[in-house]
């Protein structure tokens, strides 16, 4: 097999010296693979994603561990190398393109800008490329839309424009931070289908952050479940739906027992709340909310326990956890 597109080893991200937003994440992504990161709000999904481009404020954050993308050590890059790498090798689409695009430039100008930043191209060439991209992401009357400002477009069109911008320099890796959360259900599906189609066409590797288990199953080859800054379970989409082993994953699945694959609905809350990232407990961070917690859980951080090929869970009781699934499901919230 060729070298992985992304290799993250023991990633730790700390803000202000105390908030451990990411606390030892390992993740490998092969070329052309799509991985979904799911988990509750604040579990460190966006922070993990932004670390791949080193987008955290340098003065207030510390990033440790190792990140290799397309064979290059991201944490060792100089500012200049980093700028050349961002947008060309890796690019990002954001949750709310209205906020992520500059309001006083037209979308066409913003796409031409990234092309001219990374490649030798005249204004006219860059604009022609932008037009092609708009056709590729199927924006109607693309010529006219190039001259629109972000606020003049609908949410779905904006997200398409954002995707066009992200793909402008043919990156190897695409990072998508909840690209459909801000959209209507029907538009969400269109955007997901478009992403999957473009992923196949360009052979993209995608890390896809979402709250939506249905969307994750729809587009991802593998799913990684995050809790309190760690990946607590990882496996193929199929494994995770059929044979979840971490009590947190099981909780997520059960809380949406009513139509687990229905798209558009968010992960529903599991009783209790996530731990304070500034004061993480010594043992398993899920212990306070875990129905299977026993004394040894609180002593040490559980290591990843292999379940099957490419499937592992950070839980010392994976032998008994499937029993949770069999239990009478809690009444689904209205």
């Amino acid at each position: 097999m060729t070298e992985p597109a992304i290799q993250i080893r023991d990633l730790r991200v700390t803000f202000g010296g105390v908030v451990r937003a990411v606390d030892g994440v390992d993740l490998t992504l092969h070329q052309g693979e799509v991985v979904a990161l799911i988990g509750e709000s604040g579990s460190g999904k966006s922070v993990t994603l932004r670390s791949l481009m080193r987008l955290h404020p340098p003065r207030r954050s510390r990033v440790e561990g190792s990140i290799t993308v397309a064979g290059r050590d991201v944490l060792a890059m100089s500012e200049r190398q980093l700028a050349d790498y961002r947008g060309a090798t890796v690019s990002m689409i954001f949750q709310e393109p209205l906020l992520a695009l500059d309001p006083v430039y037209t979308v066409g100008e913003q796409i031409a800008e990234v092309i001219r930043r990374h490649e030798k191209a005249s204004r006219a060439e860059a604009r022609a490329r932008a037009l092609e991209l708009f056709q590729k992401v199927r924006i109607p009357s693309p010529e006219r839309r190039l001259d629109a400002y972000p606020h003049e477009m609908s949410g779905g069109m904006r997200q398409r424009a954002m995707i066009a911008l992200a793909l402008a320099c043919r990156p190897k890796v695409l990072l998508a931070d909840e690209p459909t959360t801000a959209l209507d259900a029907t538009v969400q599906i269109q955007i997901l289908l478009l992403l999957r189609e473009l992923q196949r066409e360009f052979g993209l590797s995608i890390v896809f952050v979402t709250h939506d288990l249905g969307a994750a199953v729809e587009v991802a080859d593998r799913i990684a479940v995050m809790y309190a800054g760690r990946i607590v379970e990882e496996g193929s989409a199929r494994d995770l739906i059929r044979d979840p082993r971490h009590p947190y994953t099981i909780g997520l699945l059960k809380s949406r027992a009513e139509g687990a694959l229905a798209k558009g609905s968010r992960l529903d809350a599991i009783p209790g709340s996530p731990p304070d990232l500034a004061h993480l407990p010594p043992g398993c961070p899920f212990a306070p909310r875990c129905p299977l917690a026993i004394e040894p859980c609180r002593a040490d951080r559980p290591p990843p326990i292999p379940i099957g090929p490419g499937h592992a869970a950070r839980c010392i009781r994976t032998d008994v956890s499937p029993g949770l699934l069999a239990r009478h499901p809690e009444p689904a919230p209205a």
Partner: protein
Amino acid sequence: MLAYLARRVAYTVPILFGVALVCFALVHIAPGDPLVSVLPPDASADLQAMLRTLYGFDRSYPEQFGRWLWRAAHGDLGTSIATGRPVTDEVFKAVGYTLRLSILATLIGFFFGSLFGFVAGYYRDSLVDKAASALSVLGVSVPHYWLGMVLVIVFAAILGWLPPTGAGSGNEGFFGSLRFMILPAVTMSVIPMGIVARTVRALVADILAQEFVIGLRAKGLTDWGVFRHVVKNAAPTALAVMGLQLGYLLGGSILIETVFSWPGTGFLLNAAIFQRDLPLLQGTILVLALFFVILNLLVDVVQTALDPRIQRS
């Protein structure tokens, strides 16, 4: 855009009318008979009545206002009591001087204010930020006549580099007359400088905190590339603030123009008030108010043209 322009211009008509009304009323609101300052103390009743007819004070107020407005619209603001020259000439000469000085002061203030504000906003809460903020507070709070006198003492009296006062004879050529403007303009510029610096600092800090800046970095833009975007985002508001500052300075700083004997509108107003030269006072205020209204209109139009987020409908 054209329809917007037409509507915006139409809005100023009632404002202009109101301004004219206030200027007209000034003469009648001012305590005492408006004729008192014109009449010799021992004027006979006949002379009084004659002058009253001559100035039109015997007619009704609306009629007087109509006649005054009609003449003003044709560029006739009456005659100065003190000098006997047409008010229009006096005012426009003074406005020319003040305009020159205010524009130079605004440019100086805008340049340094933007510079300090940008650096302060970019490196917020750093030492540079604190130094720049302290400087801008100083700019707003230092007494200008005092600063003016200090500058005159240092650069004119001690070093002898620049003329201390006046506007020159008018025969010095461009650079020669510029020398006369430097000290008063620098003194005057500390006001817009402080305000522009504070505005730009807040703008830049606000823009840098927005998510699209992360989007720009994610595209691979360097600091310079991000800087261009920040400038374009900040420009409409910063320029609007600059325009309004120019408007305030156009009123002419009585203190600064007095310190430097600069023959501008501040100087003229000062003279008109102390000599109770009502036509001159009336005319000066009217012209200044017109400038202010037009400037506001310009600022609005420029801001709308520059900022695509403002709805033009």
